[in-house]
């Protein structure tokens, strides 16, 4: 596929991610921090986010599966996930975390379980979207083109 077509695809895809609320302005902030001296900055930070989130989601699953639920521990994990998703602009994930924390405060196990399902869903969605985005960027670079600034 031609560079121009790939670039067009990337622009459309990225726009849709913002439009549909997967990403917010904080992602743009990250993109602006990337430059010639740090060409892989966004991928590096997002990769850290993926690692960190999957660990947290596993911990949450285990903790919520206990006989007696430690809501404080759950809240601490969700707080972390909320923070990291907010800092990379993963808006939908962050929003579920807000609701999740409310259920923690109430000690509502059912509510927490529902939120855990939702946050996993949103996380895997945004992970998939971002991986697609990075692949598109790679294709453009390999075809000799440059990433369009949005």
């Amino acid at each position, binding site marked *: 596929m031609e560079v121009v077509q790939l670039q067009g695809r990337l622009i459309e895809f990225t726009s849709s991610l913002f439009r549909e609320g997967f990403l917010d302005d904080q992602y743009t*902030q990250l993109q602006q921090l990337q430059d010639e001296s740090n060409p892989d900055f966004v991928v590096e*930070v997002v990769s*850290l986010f993926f690692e*960190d989130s999957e660990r947290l989601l596993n911990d949450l699953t285990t903790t919520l599966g206990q006989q007696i639920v430690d809501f404080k521990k759950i809240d601490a994990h969700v707080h972390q996930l909320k923070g990291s998703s*907010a800092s990379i602009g993963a808006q939908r994930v962050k929003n579920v975390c807000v609701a999740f924390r409310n259920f923690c405060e109430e000690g509502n196990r059912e509510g927490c379980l529902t939120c855990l399902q939702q946050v996993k869903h949103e996380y895997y969605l945004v992970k998939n979207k971002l991986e697609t985005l990075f692949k598109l960027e790679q294709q453009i670079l390999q075809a000799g083109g440059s990433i369009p600034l949005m």
Partner: protein
Amino acid sequence: MGDREEELHVLAVDDSVIERKSLERMLKKSDYKVTTAENGLRALEHLGLVEDAKQTTLEANDMKINLIITDYCMPGMTGYELLKKIKESPSLKKIPVVIMSSENIPTRIKKCLEDGAEEFMLKPLQQSDVLRLRNHVTETLVFKH
């Protein structure tokens, strides 16, 4: 050698590796020199102030930290506790401290500001927030020479 005097050295403290990385990049992009720490204890070590309050003023001077920016919610020592330790230290109390938090809790903000924090910033931080940090440092620079 002359130009180097203007380069401000910021100590950034946050337990999240993602937030440390973002903050470090933002600070470097604003031409600050950056040292990061993952918790309050590490931060105090960088500042030459170890737990038993034994000070090595030589180390503190070598590091020449012009500003400390710290997360509030950290396991072990909170950002507020770190602020208190810094303000209670004769050698460190002049260093401006900025506290960040993802939670907008007025009582928390008030307490931090009353106990010596220069500013309280809401996370996630943006480039414009980081650029503003310079405003808190000018006064201490005047005292240095």
